């Protein structure tokens, strides 16, 4: 028994060196050659960081496309979902009020056009995407507030839409941050 204790302790110590020092440092080194150098890819505008390419941001001004509701207010230092169950009455009230807000700001749309992703919170609270339908219902609003043509806005939406992987696998999605950056650039 004593033999096993000593072997266990020594083996643990050696494996810590291999698995917690050698392995992660090698990966960190290789990752230096990736976009963002392993620290997350940043988006800069006029020399200032305005966001991370992968992380969604809070948008609620009418001139911007809105992202999805977030349970944590797009807090990138404390991710998480709402964890509301599908039958929870308080949750259903919250969804109803999101629907009302969307209808108020986008008077031209019908309720049945609103996709579920625009009125439900994401898993991470940092979802950078909305569905194509989620963007489509906001086009008229953004165009009228920014006083640009609907066609121009639609064109930008299309440019910032990610198609399914290789055109075959998974859903398509619209990148909200990149879309809004493109709008600001006009």
């Amino acid at each position: 028994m004593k033999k096993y204790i000593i072997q266990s302790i020594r083996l643990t110590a050696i494996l810590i060196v291999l698995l917690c020092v050698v392995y992660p440092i090698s990966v960190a080194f290789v990752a230096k050659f990736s976009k963002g150098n392993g620290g997350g890819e940043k988006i800069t505008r006029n020399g200032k960081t305005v966001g991370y390419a992968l992380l969604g941001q809070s948008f609620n001004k009418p001139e911007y496309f809105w992202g999805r509701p977030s349970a944590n207010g797009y807090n990138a230092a404390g991710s998480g979902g709402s964890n509301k169950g599908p039958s929870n009455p308080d949750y259903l009230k919250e969804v109803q009020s999101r629907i009302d807000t969307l209808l108020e700001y986008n008077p031209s749309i019908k309720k049945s056009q609103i996709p579920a992703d625009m009125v439900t919170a994401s898993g991470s609270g940092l979802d950078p995407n909305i569905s194509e339908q989620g963007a489509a219902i906001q086009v008229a609003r953004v165009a009228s507030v920014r006083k640009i043509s609907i066609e121009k806005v639609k064109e930008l939406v299309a440019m910032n839409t990610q198609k399914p992987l290789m055109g075959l696998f998974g859903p398509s999605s619209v990148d909200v941050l990149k879309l809004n950056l493109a709008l600001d650039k006009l």
Partner: protein
Amino acid sequence: MNTELLGIIATYLLTVVIAIPLGRYLAKVFAGEKVWTDFLKPLESGIYKLSGINPKEEMDWKQHLKALMMINLVWLVYGFFVLIFQDKLPWNPDGNPGMSPDLSFNTIISFVVNCNLQHYSGETGVSYLSQHYVLMFLQFVSCATGIAAAVVLFKAFRDKTATKLGNFWEFFVKSITRLLLPMSLIIAIILAFNGTPASYEGKDQFISLQGDTVHVSRGPAAQFIAIKHLGTNGGGWFGANSAHPFENPNYVTNTVELVAQVIIPIAMVIAFGIFIRRRKLAWTIFGVMTIGMLLLLVPTISSELGGNPALAKMGIGQSTGAMEGKEVRFGPAISAYWSTVTTIISTGSVNSMHDSTMPLTGLWQLLAMMINSFYGGCGVGLLNYFIYLIIAVFISGLMVGRTPEFLGHKVEAREIKIAAVITLLSPFLILAGTAIASYTFNNYGDATWSVQPKNWLNNPGFHGFSEMLYEVTSSNANNGSGFEGLGDNNVFWNVLTGIILMFGRFLPIIGPIAIAGLLGAKKFIPESAGTLKTDTKTFALMTFAVILVLNALSYFPALALGPIAEYFTIIK
């Protein structure tokens, strides 16, 4: 066919295509035959030498278990103290506090037993030192422990009669050097090049387009996330686990993470068949497991794609399916696949929040964890399945009036007793645990714990009950996912689940190894016309029936009170 369903099919096919050759490779590695990774031998000899281990020293099943338990104990003690004192130890760039003793107790057990139930949140609860030197370390070694234990079982049935079952340390070290470490390297690099942070930089800050100041947690996460999936651990670097855009940036990484968590469990089944020279048996086992998975998967996908009926009543479109707690870049279909995979395998990582899935999805998730052997965790999935096999052999033996045999060894009272105890253990832990929790919730709502029992539940009614049932089931299955609305960081849940985790891990390892050790040592009886064949379709069906009946009898009442009751309230 729509692209979301195609994505699921492609992911599963890719998994099998990788897992089968991997299984062949593993069988050779553990049999000591020549493989292309033999260039790593000097590394292994170095490890043995520095640890004072002689890998040629043969152990019987009891010695194997002693070595296994001893090294696990060392990890428990080491990790417990690091987590408590992490605020005083170096490498804590975000300045996170030390853990309370009960949280540390829960966390360390949870990672030692390959569960990764997390009652803390990655961004605010642990230092980088703890993340790598305790949690990631344990993700490697707990998985290797499971694989090594399964190899002991392989050894018991390879030769006609066997008492010497190889060396535990050798199986354990080889699992790391020949499998986990090289594959983690590859996966971590793929993740890093898709945007997952891998450098040692701490928190960042920026001002968003609308002018909000945003703090961003980062850190060397890619390394952690690779082994988190490969080792069926499931504990996330960030609080939101693989729903977080850093932890799982896009559909490619989602596929990689999905494939990574299933290849070893499938490969172990294939390796088993090759190792004991009974390939047909392995394919029957694989068949039962796959059918079991499909039976859980198909209704899950359909319930998620259908969307939330309560939202449909409000008059909005349901074309995107149920989206609460899900990410748009994955969509509901592959999220449903993930939820099935992560619960049949004991990974417990999530790319969507299970608490917000549809009631029937919750039912299938719970049932998957209760069965816990349709593929199952690294190594331990096969051990769990082995118990079902023994029970099936016994019942079939009784039905045809013969002495039950398994692979040429008589199954007698002692083995059946062990198998029965292990089978009864899960329902006991799950049902008693949930009962204690419900009782406390109802009668001691004002207890002065850091989360008062009356505030435990994030959702009222039947769903609230499901939150507690899920937490206990996940602990027993060493799964680690949760209905995360549950306020679980307090002394009650930390201690209760800590204890369940320990029993739910070690007894289901000790039991099968003991049975295998006892059986392997018995005289070999050559096959005759009277032998019950265990690699036939009939026997596969029998095993499947045993799994179904045992679990349905044990859990139906609890499931009826939770997800099934909720389902009927939501559709009315």
